[in-house]
């Protein structure tokens, strides 16, 4: 494949708030619906909680970091894809006059709904040639859709060389942080998808949407029951589309849901536990949309990945969406 006909994730950066809380502390503060013992036995220990920083602050911090580290000419960025599960407009921004605690329930004026994070990021980071698109309604799988679209647009449009994908979510203040037996952290990530990238070539992207499961509160049990069969089917379909087998995958880069669920899914898809990067589940928790890129960066820095390795990224988002991606490092 020539360097100009493919796209890859050239650079990744993340932002997680400095403030950390243990499972026990969350329980004491009334921020857990379920048993702390169960959540610990599922592999969770601590999560990161945003303080003063808003979702946009976090997004800008991650994006600024990825731009600096990649040393890219900012004028080359042709598009920003802003992917969020919870905070699709700046109404949810708790800084600079926005809603004080990041809750949409605090909406005070309709025009606030048009204050979009992507535009704010574009101007704050001085990316004059970047048009912006917001991606939402896929829950934690939103960033996968952003990466998929970035790749497709780069392949389709000759003059588009680099797309900045950003995801950031700040959980509503004072709400239970455990969802479907996972604990949610605040955080953001940014990825630079570039034409002809010399790493993380995006080989295949797939997604399954089960619209019947849209009401995540009412039919949570059905969603939990659907999780494993659908995940297995999607992983197998993605491998088949890429012409690969599970043995070809050097590492699975997961979303940070319960370690136990990865033990089960690993068995179902025939992937041994030592080929699933689960190091951040206990320490970071589930950052909505930023888990996989955060883990990809950590796995890369830890030396777990070698040039040419095939990596499988997988996530699930309420809505209900399952997403899978194979990249070649």
């Amino acid at each position, binding site marked *: 494949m020539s360097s100009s006909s493919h796209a890859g994730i050239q650079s990744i950066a993340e932002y997680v708030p400095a403030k950390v809380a243990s499972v026990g502390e969350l329980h004491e503060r009334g921020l857990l619906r379920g048993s702390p013992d169960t959540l610990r*036995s599922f592999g969770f220990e601590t999560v990161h909680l945003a303080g003063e920083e808003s979702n946009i602050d976090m997004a800008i911090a991650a994006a600024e970091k990825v731009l600096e580290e990649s040393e890219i000419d900012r004028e080359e960025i042709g598009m920003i894809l802003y992917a969020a599960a919870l905070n699709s407009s700046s109404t949810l921004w708790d800084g600079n006059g926005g809603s004080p605690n990041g809750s949409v329930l605090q909406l005070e004026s309709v025009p606030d709904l048009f204050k979009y994070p992507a535009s704010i990021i574009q101007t704050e980071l001085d990316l004059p040639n970047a048009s912006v698109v917001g991606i939402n309604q896929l829950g934690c799988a939103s960033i996968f859709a952003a990466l998929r679209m970035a790749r497709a647009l780069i392949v389709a449009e000759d003059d588009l060389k680099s797309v900045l994908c950003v995801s950031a979510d700040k959980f509503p203040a004072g709400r239970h942080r455990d969802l479907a037996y996972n604990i949610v952290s605040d955080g953001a990530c940014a990825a630079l998808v570039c034409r002809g990238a010399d790493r993380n070539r995006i080989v295949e992207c797939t997604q399954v949407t089960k619209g019947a499961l849209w009401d995540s509160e009412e039919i949570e049990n059905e969603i939990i029951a659907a999780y*494993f069969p*659908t995940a297995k089917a999607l992983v197998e379909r993605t491998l088949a589309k890429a012409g690969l087998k599970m043995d070809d995958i050097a590492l699975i880069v997961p979303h940070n849901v319960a370690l136990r669920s990865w033990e089960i899914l690993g*068995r179902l898809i025939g992937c041994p536990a030592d080929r699933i990067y689960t190091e951040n589940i206990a320490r970071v928790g589930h950052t909505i949309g930023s888990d996989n890129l955060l883990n990809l960066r950590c796995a890369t820095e830890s030396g777990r990945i070698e040039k040419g390795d095939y990596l499988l990224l997988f996530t699930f988002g309420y809505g209900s969406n399952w997403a899978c991606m194979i990249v070649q490092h």
Partner: protein
Amino acid sequence: MREQSIFLTGATGAVGSELLRNLAARKGLTINVLVRRTDREPCERVKTLLGDLDVTAKLNVLEGDVCAGPSLGLDNAAVGSLQRETTHIIHAAGSTSFGLALPDARAANVWGSRNVLDFARSCASLECGAFLSTVYVSGKRRGDFAESDYGDAGHGFVNSYEQSKAEMEEMVREAMNELPLILVRLSIVVGDSATGRVSRFNAIHHAIRLFYTGLAPMIPGEPAGPVDMVSSDFVAAGVLQLLENGPSPGVFHLAAGRESCSSLEELVDETMSALARFRPEWRKRSVEKPLIVDLDTYELFVRSVEETGNPVLQGATRSIRTFAYQLAHPKVFETERAAAALAWGGISPQPSLAFYPRVIKYCLESNWGMRPC
């Protein structure tokens, strides 16, 4: 069966009720039915079972209980009369619940059978006594299980039902030295082959419901592993044929056997396909086909569900696990003896998948027994 007097226990159960309907429509036959009192009168219970059936046999409903000692809860006069006239016994009473504690399962299936055996010993004209058992006395054995085989061979049992039935068989086998008895081991009885009608909903039907509601993400087993199911009409015809003409003593399997069983994967596929066929709007729910997984993976999943404390998912997994562990010990039930004994009557099991979809349709239309159908 002319000039015969049949003593039937368990007539209100899934198999017993089929036997009763079959016998009641015959002529020149006396049927003495032992029925427990529940919140309803025994006669009323039997009348409900028979519905608008044209009863041509002489039918006596006796209030009693196989667990009530050697007299079976009957008065001396009734016992004496039965002892004189009974030519055949069908002992179908017992508990088919998979979730009972072993002492309770024994009370229903072992001690009740001991009382019926004592009664059989006192019957002067007994020609044959049929004790209904289950092919799953084989427990956790794998591979072929012949009619000449007994028990779990040290592999253990999946549930107390299997163990109590195996213990019952030991007792009956001993009694075969002195009495004309047959043991009839039944496979999983799912419903009528023609109409799909289910007289008593069991764990299999509950599993179909969990598939329907999307609360069964996985079941243990091997995709190619055999699953043996039979129809209630085959079982009823088979039991009566064996009672009348089967060599006694003997052990017989009323099972689909190698030729008529399906694989677990075929069964799961057919379940999903039939649900979509008979309830087209169900497709919109996008329920994924349950996975067939190894036992370790299933147990890990069950343990996780238990840890969550989620009552809905716990209920679903508990409902499946009482029988589903049997799927992880696949076996084929040989039916040589039964096939030979039933051949001249033209009785043979239909392939499971030929009638199973009708049972699913009945489950849907009756809303698992909640709606008249």
